[in-house]
């Protein structure tokens, strides 16, 4: 026995209430502390950096409106991920479904032209984006529900095809989605009727409220409806579902299609909101992947997605602005986001286990006479 101590993980029967709040909070502080070490090592003041980040993310008009604008997308991709995850369906291809939402939305916005009034046009664009996202997940959903093929692999791989598709429709000369008036490859703008105005001087669009409504509505669906009841039964014990005559296949299919539609919707929201066209740089932003992070931070609880979506967006906006307002490299911001996620997820261990250190009493030295 070299080490006289042993760390014991004891599973908790029940998580104490206070820990549900204490653990996430201390995780964030631990992450900030961890980040501070790096800031000091690279010659930056942690206090200045953090107060700048907070200022740019939450505490200024531009900061908070940018944060909410970003959260519009991240809440959508967040519920897309969480909605599937809660049924143990790991749709990690929200990124690809978002690209398709962009394409679907742009198609409706361009093809339908100015024939429809804005009040009708915008919902049609959003619907087309959602349908395109659902279509992109249809094959993974079908083979998952019928054959049990891993949706993790199939949805992820389709993301790469989705990225190529975005490049294809923008970089191919004469493409329907490409702006015909410039030689520089750019997306073609959608009709005016398919574009919303942002609030005042901000970059926040009314779609933010659509995202909020959808989050609340889905929360209600899961908690109160027969469909949500089924999801809960299947998620917890497929055998109980079988016993009760609940068809898991059909529910699996629907949950995955809805998940895909939500990511597609996020893409279409970019069309009616800030972009107004297919912006090829979307494939570098990772909004779909960020949805997975948002879902993980909310522990797949649809009620918490709004909170985690706004928090994560704030971090991202604040982190991105660091480079503009100070000379801190953008990577510090990205690293801090990663650290917070890592610590938040690691903190789960404290919620689930009672961790304590015990002294190992060495009895081999005290031999008892027979």
């Amino acid at each position, binding site marked *: 026995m070299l080490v006289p101590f042993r760390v014991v993980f*004891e*599973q*908790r*029967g*029940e998580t104490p209430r206070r820990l549900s709040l204490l653990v996430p909070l201390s995780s964030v502080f631990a992450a900030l502390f961890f980040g501070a070490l790096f800031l000091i090592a690279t010659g930056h003041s942690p206090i200045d950096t953090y107060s700048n980040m907070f200022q740019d993310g939450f505490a200024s008009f531009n900061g908070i409106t940018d944060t909410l604008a970003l959260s519009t997308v991240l809440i959508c991709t967040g519920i897309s991920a969480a909605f599937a995850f809660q049924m143990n369906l790991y749709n990690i291809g929200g990124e690809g479904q978002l690209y398709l939402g962009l394409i679907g939305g742009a198609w409706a916005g361009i093809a339908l032209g100015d024939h429809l009034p804005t009040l009708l046009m915008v919902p049609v664009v959003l619907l087309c984006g959602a349908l395109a996202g659902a279509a992109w997940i249809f094959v993974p959903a079908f083979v998952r529900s019928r054959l049990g093929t891993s949706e993790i692999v199939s949805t992820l791989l389709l993301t790469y095809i989705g990225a190529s598709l975005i490049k294809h429709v923008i970089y191919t000369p004469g493409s329907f989605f490409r702006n015909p008036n410039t030689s520089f490859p750019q997306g073609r703008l959608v009709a005016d009727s398919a574009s919303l105005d942002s609030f005042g001087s901000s970059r926040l669009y009314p779609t933010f409220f659509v995202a909020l409504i959808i989050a609340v509505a889905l929360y209600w669906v899961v908690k*109160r*409806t*027969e*469909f*949500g*009841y089924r999801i*809960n*039964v299947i998620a*917890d*014990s497929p*055998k*109980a579902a*079988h*016993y*009760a*005559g609940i068809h898991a296949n059909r529910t699996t299919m629907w949950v995955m299609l809805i998940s895909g539609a939500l990511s597609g919707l996020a893409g279409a929201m970019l069309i009616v909101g800030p972009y107004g066209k297919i912006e090829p740089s979307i494939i570098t932003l990772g909004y779909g992947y960020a949805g997975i992070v948002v879902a993980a931070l909310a522990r797949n609880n649809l009620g918490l997605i709004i909170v985690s979506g706004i928090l994560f967006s704030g971090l991202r906006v604040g982190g991105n602005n660091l480079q503009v307002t100070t000379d801190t490299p953008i990577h510090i911001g990205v690293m801090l986001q990663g650290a917070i996620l890592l610590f938040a997820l690691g903190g789960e261990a404290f919620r689930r286990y009672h961790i304590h250190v015990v002294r190992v009493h*060495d*009895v*081999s030295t005290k*031999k*008892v006479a*027979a």
Partner: protein
Amino acid sequence: MSNTSHEVAQGPHHTSGAASTALSAHSIDKKFPGVLANDSVDFDVRAGEVHTLLGENGAGKSTLAAVLCGLYQPDAGYLMRNGKRINLSSPRAGLQHGIAMVHQHFRLVERFTVSENVILGSRDLPFRLNRRDINEKVAAVAESYGLPIDPDATVGDLSVGQRQRVEIVKALYQGAEILLLDEPTAVLVPSEVEKLFENVHAMTAAGKSIVFISHKLGEVVEISDRVTVLRNGRVTGHVSGRGTADTKELARLMVGRDIELNAQRASHATGHEVLQIRNLSLSVNDVSMLSDISFSVHAGEMVGIAGVAGNGQRELADTIAGLISPTSGSVTISGSMTTDRGPIQAREVGLAYVPEDRLGMGLVPSMSILDNLLLTRDRQIVVDRVSVRPEAARLIEQFEIKANGPDHLARKLSGGNAQKVLLARELSGGRGATKLLVVCSPTRGLDVGAIETVRRLLNDARSAGQAILLISEDLDEVLSLSDRVLVLYRGAVVHETPGETAKLSQVGAAMAGLANEGRS
């Protein structure tokens, strides 16, 4: 009672005995959150004997075994091996002292061959394995205890009985002197049990010690030299002498009071036919699970299905409940054919089904009692919980369920209370009024109070005119409750007898597959 155990562990008759104590445990305490699984337990096993740990589920048998083999460290107390105090920090440490456990759920790699599994975990293997050498050694070990096994066979292809043999050979190969067998017969068919007992005798004859863990009285009496009975984590008594132990006495020690094994069956006039099964057969992957079963259950009648686990009971129940489609034959409930129609149709014509697997099949663990009541009912598009809440509260009171209310989560219920929730839901009717109740192992793992409640509820349901099919491995339960007893063996009904005149020996013989060869 702890006095008695003290004497046995260290008494004078013991040291003067022919065989010496191989392993002993002294005042072992082991605590889990909320449970004292072992409460100053003393235990010892001598070389060349079979010492049984007997107790109900949750009595602390498996915990003690885990302490004995080094899987758990006791909170208090200590172990002695051949008179020397030892400290087992892991199962590997246990193995170094010659102590090995054969787990109830085997720990074998299915893709590996027998000898690959046997040598798995050995630390002194050469870099380059000489398969022929190893195979010879494995075969030699197996042969010497009458455990013939092909070292080159892939474990995935072996039967359950053969896999158990591999586990035992592995323990012996690793040099075990003391083998802990955790409920070894639970997964075996009767002929395999017989074979296992022969192997056990061969091992004890060679001076090995066997700690046999079980809750089945009959086999315990047959195999044990000594029996230690546990209840609620404490030793409640000892019995010694092979074949001489009195099952009634053992049952009393195990349960804590006199057990009336005789029938409390009230006789009724039975009514019309509720369940009719005709020529039911089921094959899964070309393996026959049920073959040509025909019987019926009438209103106000309880029909018991006896049999060793794994003889088709679960498949029969699932087929009646509409969860499995039979290969051929028909199931008719209240005059409606329900074969191939699914569980919802079966329920609509009056089926209620209490599966063997309570938490995870019958109940959804993460859901509340209220939501679990809704599981087998007709639900609206928006689930109406408000109107079900008073009923849930009423059922909790009526069935004496210990819970904080309708929102209490199913997984936080004790086994007995979970079973009561399940029965409350199934008996109170869902999609249609309950006419047929299929119950599987309704009292397994429950404490005595809950067992009595559950049996009373079943009797009440029968008195109310429901037809009941009781499927249980607990032969005493089947015999004491049922109006008629059918014995299922390898998927076929091999014996049928009225409950009142059923003979334990006859039914037991039929369960062992000896129905055609007369009485044992």
